[in-house]
């Protein structure tokens, strides 16, 4: 054992032998004194944002090709108003319902002594793994009255409310629970504490979740097709299939415009709700709110929610599979092939989207600024582009600007997925980077680590679980994607979703059911992992 004195023998309180600095270690003055600009990051991010803008560019080029007069005529017709009314009223009602259900469920799971909280935390999220069109298949195949506006409200609310639940529960977990105690100690009653303190803590998360819900609704196709509810997206699909490109473009432009309004509204509200936090960031465990007698109705509510959101689609699939009246599955081989294809696409697209999201997220988190925020924001516009538009844009681009890919459209499909689900990946990657504070990077740099080493040894290690979560989110979405897959799938290849769609379109419910079940199973695994990830991140803070 050496003495402490020997440890720092290299320094021993004297100056270092100076020696000339290698040229690459110093920077020229011009760069040294100005603000450091993350040039590489900016370049990558700009390229990615540009790639994401391809569908929009396609829309505008096509609209221009069709001529302004034609497009305006196509927009200002009664069909448009009908579609607008259908889309807007559904979006408003479902978003509202999702906000209520998602927030209430999140609060009960995170802040109360609800029995079986860990199980509910998983059961409440799993419906996200069930494709919307499987949910509507489940409801519609059992009860044919579930259709139209009424049916769409039921089905879509149950399918997408986890999009509010997830961010809200995460924010409730990280928010300071002491604020609730302070409010109570100041004589504010429990209900108003919830409204004035808890809700305002979670406001950003609720709004963010609602934004996602609204945008998902605007782009939904399969569920509405089954329920016979006409929205912009279903109409665009019809027009595209009828090769009526100008009409499809005109409708898409309106759809993008609506999505822009949603984005802008969310953005302007978010700016007002800053949460200040004084004192150390250490987390305390506080006793959860006691539900008392309210426990039973709350438990009943969770049970009903799980039955409706999870039980009905799964139950319907199981029912049709064993229903003697309909033809059953003809051998397991097509099922296995389709599952493998789906998994392959999911892994590739998940990796592509996560890798692409990394520089944009890094830029947004580490180098905030107006331009960079706009760059990041612009990528969310993709959410407003229905898969059908993105798919057609890619087909159009490869046909016009390359010699074409022939029948092998699989790479194009991967790219399409990566673009569609980029915003999801971005949300996950940003959250993961928040767990890797810049201070630790600085620490590593001061210990003599070069930038790449810092990235590998600190940033990626800390962000790793979150990156995995982002990857899972994309994988999940790919498994349950239908619209773009229908358009871009190579001839003769089937994914779970397309095979399911083919069978259910032919009313072969017995044959469709196994595919629905496998889709649920394949997508449920990552969603379980996601739940675990969020769980662990709360445990490590506690």
């Amino acid at each position: 054992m050496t003495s402490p004195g020997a440890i720092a023998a290299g320094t021993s309180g004297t100056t270092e032998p100076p020696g000339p600095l290698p040229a690459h270690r110093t920077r020229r003055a011009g760069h040294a004194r100005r603000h450091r600009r993350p040039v590489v990051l900016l370049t990558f991010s700009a390229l990615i944002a540009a790639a994401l803008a391809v569908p929009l560019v396609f829309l505008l080029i096509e609209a221009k090709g069709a001529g302004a007069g034609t497009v305006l005529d196509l927009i200002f017709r009664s069909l448009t108003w009908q579609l607008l009314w259908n889309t807007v009223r559904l979006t408003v009602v479902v978003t509202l319902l999702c906000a209520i259900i998602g927030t209430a469920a999140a609060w009960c799971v995170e802040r109360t002594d609800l029995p079986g909280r860990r199980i509910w935390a998983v059961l409440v999220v799993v419906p996200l793994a069930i494709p919307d069109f499987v949910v509507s298949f489940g409801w519609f195949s059992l009860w044919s009255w579930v259709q139209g506006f009424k049916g769409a409200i039921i089905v879509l609310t149950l399918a997408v409310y986890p999009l509010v639940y997830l961010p809200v529960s995460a924010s409730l977990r990280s928010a300071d629970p002491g604020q609730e105690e302070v409010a109570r100690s100041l004589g504010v009653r429990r209900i108003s504490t919830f409204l004035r303190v808890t809700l305002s803590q979670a406001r950003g998360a609720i709004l963010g979740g609602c934004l996602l819900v609204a945008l998902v609704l605007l782009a939904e196709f399969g569920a509405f097709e089954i329920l016979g509810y006409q929205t912009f997206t279903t109409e665009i699909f019809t027009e595209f299939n009828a090769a009526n490109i100008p009409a499809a473009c005109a409708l898409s432009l309106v759809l993008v415009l609506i999505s822009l309004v949603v984005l802008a509204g969310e953005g302007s509200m978010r700016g007002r709700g800053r949460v200040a936090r004084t004192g150390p960031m250490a987390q305390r465990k506080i006793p959860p709110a006691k539900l008392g007698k309210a426990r039973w109705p709350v438990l009943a509510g969770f049970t009903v929610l799980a039955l409706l959101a999870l039980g009905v689609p799964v139950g319907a699939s199981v029912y049709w599979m064993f229903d003697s009246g309909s033809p059953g599955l003809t051998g397991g081989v097509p099922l296995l092939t389709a599952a493998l294809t789906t998994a392959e696409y999911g892994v590739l697209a998940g990796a592509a989207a996560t890798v692409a999201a990394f520089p944009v997220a890094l830029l947004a988190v580490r180098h905030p600024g107006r331009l960079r925020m706009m760059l990041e924001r612009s990528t969310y516009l993709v959410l407003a582009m229905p898969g059908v538009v993105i798919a057609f844009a890619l087909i159009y681009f490869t046909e016009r600007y390359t010699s074409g890919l022939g029948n092998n459209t699989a790479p194009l499909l991967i790219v399409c997925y990566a673009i569609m689900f980029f915003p999801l990946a971005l949300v996950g990657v940003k959250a993961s980077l928040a767990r890797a504070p810049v201070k630790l990077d600085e620490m590593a740099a001061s210990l003599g680590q070069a930038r790449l080493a810092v990235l590998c040894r600190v940033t990626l290690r800390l962000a790793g679980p979150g990156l995995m979560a982002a990857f899972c989110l994309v994988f999940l979405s790919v498994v349950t994607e239908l619209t773009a897959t229908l358009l871009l799938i190579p001839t003769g290849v089937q994914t779970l979703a397309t095979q399911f769609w083919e069978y259910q379109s032919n009313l072969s419910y017995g044959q469709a059911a196994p595919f629905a079940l496998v889709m649920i199973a394949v997508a449920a695994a990552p969603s379980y992992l996601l739940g675990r990830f969020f769980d662990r991140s709360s445990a490590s803070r506690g």
Partner: protein
Amino acid sequence: MKQLAISGLRKAFGPHRVLADLDLEVPAGSLTAILGPSGSGKTTLLRIIAGFDLADGGTVMIGDRVVDSDRVHVSPEHRRIGYVPQEGSLFPHLTVAANVGFGLRARQRRGQRTKDLLAAVGLSDLGRRYPHELSGGQQQRVALARALAIEPAMVLLDEPFASLDAHLRASVRSDVQQIFRDAGTTALLVTHDQDEALAIADHVAVLRDGRIAQHSTPQYLYSEPADSGIAKFIGDANLLDGVRHGDFVETALGRLRAEGPSAAGSQLVTVLVRPEHIELRPAAGDAGPAGWVVDCEYYGHDAVLRVQLKGNGDIAPIIVRTAGDHQLPPGSPVTLRPKGQVRTWPR
């Protein structure tokens, strides 16, 4: 021999000037404290020295190597400066040993050197633990060992004891002082706590208005502050108005001996009387200015009383430090008698 030399350092955030032509030299092997109130730019200064932030102008030299100037900016990883931030900033995904060995070359990380460093900070047994399993003081010592591991040219400490409990602070403080003394490493510490600066540093530099207002040993700083502002910032101080004639000064506490040269004739001055330089007697009628106790803060080993002088209602109560054995409730009549020489500044 100086280890750190800063000259003309400037830094502004927008219109807000933080550092204005700051000059500072730190002798090799010393422990120097930068003392300044919150928001005085202490952390900014450290971050510039560490290379995390860019200065607007001026030069920084470590040893004889220029690391910041108009022509040069050496990036943090090439400066060999150990940095110990306020909250330790240990890597949460690594064990204590891996944290300490983080800056070493890959094959050294698991070697003897990491063990030696852990031993030096008294944490030999905790190498396999993770940061969240350590107390605040232990985390701070790990952060220190991690900084020392790279054989730094100097170590920067940013309020290293601020996040510790009061009783822990004193012991960690003396540990840290001992570790630096043994290692002989130059250290620069910033703090807003004057007791801390006086207690552990060899030199104290007071940062005010973006520059160093005074830089000297703790003893000199306390007894010979450069101006009344510093006098008030370093420890408790009674600042009285007075009139100086030669070696004497007339104040509300009577006629006191003044130190330092004086101007010819009489001169209006501000007089510094430290609380422990006033003797307090319980009985009235004794020689010296009389007054009554306003309140008393009792510390056990001593007590600090505020005394309102009789017939001088317009001047602030006088602060007096006494041994802790008086029983003087508020209102008790007392007399005061200043001892020794006082310091004066022209008004």
